[in-house]
């Protein structure tokens, strides 16, 4: 039914490249002088000449896509800037890395992505470069990478549809299909697929490979957290925040768009081609634990749909990287009760299959966990019990307990 994964997309014809280039060009300052290459701090002397040369190659062609030679030279400079700054980004704890070096990395990604477009090559690698800059860099030119990736993503629908159709085809199971229940609710019941998929309803196909989810662990009544329905800010603050008592708040998310919109299909459609960090391995205290960058589509096909091994899109500021998803959620009013101003609110996404485990740990900030679909079992201990929870001695894991928590059932 669905077409098998096709071979390489043909290189974009010059006409397409011209139209795309015009759109991309419009994101940049009009003249070379206006692209100031300003950095939020000092970097090594060798960097500025490289930035200037890249800028010169870009503007040298006066708004037309650079010639092949200039595009190749621009690509090379992008590589050099990224590789040089990469070493700085890895030269110490992340919080000590200067913003200036992260900006240099972003310029490297920007020039690299622009070179791909200028050379008329397929857009997906350019999208990946933008994502690398968004993940590891720091904003330059008014967050130009976020604007650039939006433009480039629009070029992808046709390619993306092919990719997602192939995704559906790939998960067709061998052998008999026992009836199984999908853990993720399909937004459209058993009906047709989302617009991104040409194949028959993905729900029907994907359903067969999902395993039966484990039953929820039993929680004794005396351990269950209190549940409140939309308490007032004052009530929450006085009875839970200040005395540091955990609580489940109900009804807050009822009208968030994500409750209706989010599904595996939706994520593939909105963000399938975007590169995200994925944690591999059962828990981050294990020796074999690692992180890997991959596209959302790859993550879903490898770790959500097929579940060969554990992969977890965890603790990632997905909504900064993909602002379209941010429009599907709200920030609970209760967040304004925290210390500091709104800038101190960080929003992380957690997206994974069943069986992901976060070891017992303590976060530096107060948290709200908003569960959109699926379920999570959480066990909380009072900070007063910290010593009895045997935090690791090493600096890296000092916020994490050495204890395993097995839940029963």
């Amino acid at each position, binding site marked *: 039914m669905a077409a098998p994964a096709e071979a390489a997309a043909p290189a974009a014809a010059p006409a397409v490249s011209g139209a795309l280039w015009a759109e991309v060009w419009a994101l940049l300052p009009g003249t070379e002088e206006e692209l100031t290459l300003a950095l939020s701090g000092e970097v090594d002397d060798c960097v500025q000449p490289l930035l200037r040369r890249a800028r010169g190659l870009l503007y040298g062609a006066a708004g037309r896509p650079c010639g092949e030679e200039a595009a190749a030279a621009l690509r090379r400079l992008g590589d050099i800037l990224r590789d040089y700054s990469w070493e700085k980004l890895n030269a110490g704890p992340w919080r000590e890395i200067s913003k200036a070096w992260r900006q240099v990395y972003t310029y490297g990604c920007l020039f690299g992505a622009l070179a791909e477009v200028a050379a008329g090559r397929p857009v997906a690698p350019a999208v990946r470069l933008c994502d690398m800059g968004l993940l590891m860099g720091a904003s330059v030119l008014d967050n130009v990478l976020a604007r650039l990736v939006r433009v480039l993503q629009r070029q992808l629908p046709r390619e993306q549809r092919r*990719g997602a159709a192939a995704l559906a085809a790939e998960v067709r199971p061998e052998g008999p299909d026992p009836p199984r229940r999908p853990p993720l609710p399909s937004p459209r019941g058993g009906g047709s697929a989302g617009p991104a998929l040409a194949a028959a309803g993905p729900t029907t196909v994907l359903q067969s490979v999902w395993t039966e989810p484990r039953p929820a662990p039993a929680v004794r009544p005396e351990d269950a957290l209190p549940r409140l329905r939309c308490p007032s800010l004052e009530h929450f603050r006085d009875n839970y925040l200040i005395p540091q008592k955990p609580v489940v708040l109900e009804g807050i998310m009822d009208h968030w768009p994500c409750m209706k919109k989010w599904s595996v299909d939706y994520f593939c459609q909105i963000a399938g081609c975007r590169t995200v960090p994925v944690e591999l391995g059962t828990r981050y205290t294990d020796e074999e634990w690692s992180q890997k960058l991959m*596209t959302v589509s790859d993550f879903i096909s490898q770790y959500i749909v097929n579940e060969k091994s554990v992969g977890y899109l965890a603790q990632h500021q997905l909504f900064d990287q993909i602002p379209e998803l941010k429009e599907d959620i709200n920030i609970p009013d209760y967040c304004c009760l925290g210390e500091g101003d709104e800038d101190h609110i960080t929003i992380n996404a957690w997206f994974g299959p069943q069986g992901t485990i976060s070891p017992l740990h303590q976060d530096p900030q107060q948290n709200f966990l908003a569960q959109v679909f699926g379920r999570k079992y959480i066990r909380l201990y009072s900070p007063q019990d910290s010593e009895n929870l045997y935090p690791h001695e090493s600096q890296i894991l000092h916020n994490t307990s050495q204890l395993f928590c097995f839940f029963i059932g």
Partner: protein
Amino acid sequence: MAAPRRAWLVFGFSTEEAAGEPGPGPGPRRLEPGPGGIRRVWPAWSYVVVETGAGLEVQSAGQRRRLRGWSEALPSETHLVLRGATVARAWRRGAGLGAPAWSRALPRGLPWQPLPLLPGGFATPRPPFYTTLPAGLRARRLALGNEHVLVLGANGELHAWGGGRHGQLGHGTLESEAQPRLVEALAGVPMRAVAAGGWHSASVSEAGDLYVWGWNESGQLALPCKALAEERAQGENAGAGTAALTPHREQPVAEAAAFISIQALPALLDLPQEPEVSEVSCGSRHTAAVTRGGELYTWGWGKYGQLGHGDTTSSDQPQRVEHLVAEGLWAEAVVCGPWTTYVCVQEPPGPQCVPSPPAACSEDPAAARTSPSPTLPSAPQDRTRTDSAAPD
């Protein structure tokens, strides 16, 4: 009998490209010998300091500049440290050689140690420029990584300290160390050489065995590297242009346990045919070793051609640099810059001659002075030079 001719070749990132200009390609390139040939090289990223018969010289894109009166250099992208007979100084790059950013008088009469070692401590090409060492360390050699320091002591013992997040200290943990700490795993094996890369370390024992430890993210430890294995697998999965969208094919990825990202304890590295290693040097993310048989092996990050195999692929397996073999060149010494490999080679002798053994690189300064003038000792090595010229 014609004296053997020596030359320095360099592979990898060029100083021209570091300046944003078109580059001459990954190499090999031959360093211009200058007056009296090149004896030692100290590479930075965008420039290299060489020692010629006429003294030190800075070579960068298209430019050469003499540094009169100095005997040794320790360069970085932010500063240049120069050492003379009586003083060591550091200058900010790009500020010319006017007022130094740092200066330290050196007492005379002490046994010579190569930079970064200085009497009582060591120099760094960035602030604080000088750090004391505990006297008990009896440092013979010292190597600087991006975040760590390695010291080879008088009895062949190693100490390591500094940042340890990538296992580069060899203490078996990912913890950093504020003070020199003995590398216990090698305590029974006397070393004769030590090298530090960006986030990895290497040492050569008296018996010619090579040990490596630290970060293996580009195969620089010659241990199985997951990222490289995946690249190779993707390369075999014929070119899909939209690699990011191609649904993941079932790749026969070996057990996760087989790949090593960090090696926190020294591991013995056997080169193909297990020859004796005489020297090792580390770049940012690659490693190079010279064997007693005059061969050069490289592995690790190769994107800028620094492995010297004529391509830009990285490798987690040591490979011999065939160019030297093809040209009949005998490798005597190797020094890595961040993205480069400099190798000192002895060129094929004339028809009636036997190649002179690499023992010309002796530690005895007297031997160097009595050898005929066209013969240049290979670098780096110990040489006490009496500098009569006052430093600039």
